[in-house]
């Protein structure tokens, strides 16, 4: 059974903007699924429709076999959602926010209190349970939204940019939490601008652009469509004029940095050997860009024009 199945889904807003243009998508039960795309690709509209916050123009959506049109309550019961924008009452207490959410799902008061404690402890917010939400840091507010989304024990957790604006340490602890959650059986759909995040966490990916799914499949398979990787190399001694390196496209960025495009058919060892043959010894290398980001840029044909993408993290050789 699919955790999420979307068929020919379209959304045209009142202002005429076609946010979704007949997309088909399936997410397997238990999957950790990445939904990628630049700003305006239609990711948030898709999530809005699945969580019933946005009305669809056409098409079918089902969650664990329950139709959004005919079994809305079953769909809602199966889903937990962490939206992109902060949507908690900042003047309310942390514990109230989570307990009330449980109540809205019909959990008895005692069950709601117990579930809220579990979720707040999991997200390391239990010590702040009596504080108002506005006193929390940005990362804590994100964690609060995750705790709230988990209080009804959803089978499908949808996270729309959950780590936007949080520092790298918190981001990595959230990654581990999400991995554990997924290992426990919760299906997860993640949208993110941090492509490194998707590559690290997700098993399947769909890339959206202008309301269409332009690529999808297992992460490893999708990445094989990348024809080349670009590396930044540090030479042992400064290079003032780069000789021609047979068989490779190597450029000189500065005396202490070379840029080399490595075709998928060639190995790093071959590159090192070619450089060594022309008298350049390399001491370290790192990816110029995240592999998925390169693929993404190729697919969307917008190199240099995607303001929504974050700079990738450096990768040690």
């Amino acid at each position, binding site marked *: 059974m699919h955790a999420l199945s979307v068929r020919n889904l379209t959304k045209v*807003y009142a202002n005429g903007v076609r946010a979704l243009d007949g997309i088909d998508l399936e997410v397997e039960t238990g999957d950790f699924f990445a939904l990628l795309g630049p700003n305006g690709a239609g990711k948030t509209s898709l999530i*809005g429709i699945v*969580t*019933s*916050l*946005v*009305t669809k123009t056409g098409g079918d959506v089902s969650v664990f076999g329950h139709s959004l049109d005919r079994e*809305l*309550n079953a769909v*809602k*019961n199966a*889903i937990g*959602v962490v*939206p992109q*924008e*902060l*949507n*908690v*009452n*900042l*003047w*309310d207490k942390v514990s*109230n*926010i989570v307990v*009330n*959410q449980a*109540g*809205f*799902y*019909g*959990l*008895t*008061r005692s069950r*709601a209190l117990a579930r809220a404690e579990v979720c707040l402890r999991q997200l390391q917010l239990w010590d702040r349970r009596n504080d108002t939400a506005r006193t929390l840091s940005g990362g804590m507010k994100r964690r609060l939204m995750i705790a*709230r989304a988990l209080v*009804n024990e959803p089978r499908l957790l949808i996270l729309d940019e959950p780590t936007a604006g949080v520092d790298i340490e918190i981001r990595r602890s959230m990654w581990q939490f999400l991995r554990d959650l997924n290992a426990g059986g919760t299906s997860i759909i993640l949208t993110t601008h941090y492509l490194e995040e998707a590559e690290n966490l997700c098993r399947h990916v769909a890339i959206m652009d202008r309301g269409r799914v332009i690529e999808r499949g297992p992460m490893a398979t999708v990445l094989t469509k990348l024809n080349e990787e670009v590396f930044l190399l540090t030479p042992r001694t400064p290079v003032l004029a780069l000789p021609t390196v047979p068989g490779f496209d190597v450029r000189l960025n500065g005396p202490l940095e070379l840029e080399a495009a490595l075709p998928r058919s060639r190995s790093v060892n071959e590159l090192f050997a070619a450089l060594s043959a022309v008298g350049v010894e390399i001491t370290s290398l790192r990816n110029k860009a995240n592999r998925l980001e390169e693929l993404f840029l190729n697919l969307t044909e917008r190199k240099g024009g995607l303001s929504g993408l974050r700079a990738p993290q450096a990768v040690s050789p």
Partner: protein
Amino acid sequence: MNLGQQFIALSTLVRREYYRVLRIWGQTILPPVINMALYFIIFGNLIGQRIGQMDGFDYKQYIAPGLIMMAVITNAYGNVVSSFFSSKMNRHLEEMLVAPMANATIVLGHMAGGIVRGVAVGLAVTAVALLFTPLPFVHPLITISVFLLCAAIFSLGGLINGIMAKNFDDVSIIPSFVLQPLTYLGGVFYSISLLPELAQQISRLNPILYVVNAFRYGMLGVSDVPIGTAYVMMVLCVAVLFSICVLMLNRGYRIRE
């Protein structure tokens, strides 16, 4: 969600609204108490002494039911419109929209929240009124039922305003330019029998006239309108406004894109 779970969701929403009223008591309960005291000092003591009696009652006694209803109307309406609109603007309304709560439950919960504030303020201003003048409570059941119906009507009115509002101006326009004039012209400070016939007929189109007079009938035993007509009007208002609210939520009017 079965009926029991809907009741849990409803009680959660009512509890949340109840604590909101208490948390901001300085904004919700204190101002109407001060207003009530000022009305009694100015209209009751200073001006009322020159007016004398109205419908056989001391002027302070005569205006007390209307002033109490005025406080209930303003606060029940204001509570729901501000609560719903702020939750829409701050987007925590989505907490309810993503949950399997029936739209009727969302409407009932906000209505109950408005009634909670209306009752809290109503009791507080009644206590203030009793400091200035005795109130006989001739028909206690009518007094209580009109009290609750009035709070329900204007809570639902506030909810419609909250659903429709796009900005803060929309939230303040109806209370300032519709509710307040209708309240002042709804027989709070005078009996419509003092008005020319045409003005009396126009006044009978004002729903607040029925609320104020039904409450005055419960407290003092006098009314400008038949009590049965007043009840029919109030119950009809609740039914129609409730249906409009549910219909608007079902259609996602200004809450779902």
